[in-house]
């Protein structure tokens, strides 16, 4: 690591900026949801913030379940090669 140059995300400020932009964008979509009159194909869709909650929940569930099954399916590198 001889590289002394500072790059875009070496500054914590820029990383924070990205995170806060995301948080604001999330909040924006929720606010828009209040005012939007949505045409829906399915009753669940009409619930306030259904997609937001589903997205967040699905992601968390996916990561946690995968971590849960890791001990079942994961073996050392080269498992098949002996």
């Amino acid at each position, binding site marked *: 690591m001889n590289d002394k140059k500072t*790059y875009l995300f070496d500054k914590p400020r820029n990383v924070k900026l990205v995170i806060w932009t*995301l948080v604001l964008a*999330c909040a924006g979509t929720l606010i*828009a949801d209040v005012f*939007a009159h949505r045409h829906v194909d399915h009753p669940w869709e009409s619930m306030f913030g259904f997609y937001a909650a589903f997205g*967040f929940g699905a992601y968390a569930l*996916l990561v946690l379940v995968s971590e849960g099954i890791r001990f079942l399916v994961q*073996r050392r590198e080269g498992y098949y090669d002996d």
Partner: protein
Amino acid sequence: MISVAPFLIFLVGAALAMVARGRLRDVIAVATPVVGAINLWALDGSAPMTVMLFGHGLILVEVDRLSMLFGWLFHLAVFVALVYNLYRPTKLEQVSILTYGASTMGAIFAGDLLTLLLFWEGLGLTSVFLVLARGTLRAERAAVRYLMLQVLSGVLLMCGIIVLINQGRSLAITPLELEGLAAWLIFLSLGIKAGFPLLHNWITDTYPEATETGTVIMSALTTKTSIYCLASLFPGTELLIYIGATMTVFPIFYAVLEDDLRRVLSYSLINQLGFMITGIGIGTELAINGAVAHAFAHVMYKSLLFMSMGAVLYRTGKIGASELGGLYRTMPKTTIMCIIGAASISAFPLFSGFVSKAMVMSAALQGGYDWVWLALLFASAGVLHHAGIKIPFFAFFGHDSGQRPKEAPKPMLIAMFIASVMCIGIGIFPGLLYDMLPYPVTYEPYTFEHVLTQLQLLLFAALCFVVLRVTKLEPHERPGVNLDIEWTYRWLLPRAGRCGYAILERIIHPLRQLSQIGMQSSVWLVKLWHGPGGLFARDPLISSASLAVVVIFTLVLLIDLIQGF
């Protein structure tokens, strides 16, 4: 205008590339799909081309809207792959890509099942060299397993065709009912190449082992040829809905666990095929349009993602998420184009996945398949995890691995740029793609609610990633082998074989001893009678026998003499 069968151009291109050298060979290789595209333009709307072979009339080329769309798509994919390959062009790869392209063109324009079979086998036989070209032992072994499954798929298709011929049924490529032996054999054959659950493992086994370019083109052609065939032969087959939904969900768990980023993309490929297969299963005009549009968009963004990972592999020699990180510093162009691919596969508005995937989702809801829709929605959040975030984040951002590789070579950048333009172009002007679809499109992707709900889904899923990351709950990437169905034929079968052999040996051993005893005793008996001093070999017996002969002969002579007097 004069046009020829599209596969012929690729075969001629391959033959010329075989004999040409250096720059000339590169020019021939890259020009072939361009000439092919001009031919394709002339081919549109032309009459079927037939030949007679062994008394069967083969329909070599039959053009319709569906085959034209796939034709354009595959010409583009082959072109992009050949441009990408120019960073280190090898004759083996170029000729292999061209013959592989010829097989695909033959398969999608085939007008009957027998012609399809011919090129179906070609797909496996020509592409295997792209795995072998990697030159490692691992790749060689994966190539052999790949070939076995591809040939099995061909054999199943052949058996299906034989049954059809025996029943005196037509071999035309028209929708089949999924009943009877023939239809099931063909269905399974397509299922292997389309990566149905339990038949899917060759994709994740082989693709990560091929060369940088090999993976790009293989991910584009084989499975999508099968998608084309499923759309032609089994549209509206309800079983496909559930097969497709399963395919969208199960690979995402593997994609989370997997460390090799090209294998992550291979699992992601199965997940994307799931969306298409669900659409084909639903079978309405909207669903089929959605499946086909998704195939088109998918080939572009999946190629783009594989190309960016190929560039990383080429520049760093590594592909594990745990070994990479922080490469955006010196590979900014590759990073940006990888993010474009990631945004497209995640279906962000203004990117290609957004305008195609939603058609399948809407069709699921309109068809009353609520649970399937929910599975697809879950899978959409999953896509954001493994392809939208994991791929760019762990390769280009995340922890700084300290590596400062050079930016990708120019040919790679140009190829990625073409794919990026396609991803954004389709996203912004979906009408261009919609106009080519098999049925007229009334679907409007850019409605306020669709953009809003999709953004909510994706942004909040991304927020979850940030939360997990900040709270350090996001698991670390770890290398390892994740057991999948391949365990049965890579671990269980060899061991079962060895065990079976040992058992057989145990049964055979006493039998072998018994037969040895039998042999020995018969040899002893033969020796006893015929050996030196044996009953039939004793000296006295022979001498007395000759004496007896002499005596009898003398007696006969004497009697004859006496009678003479």
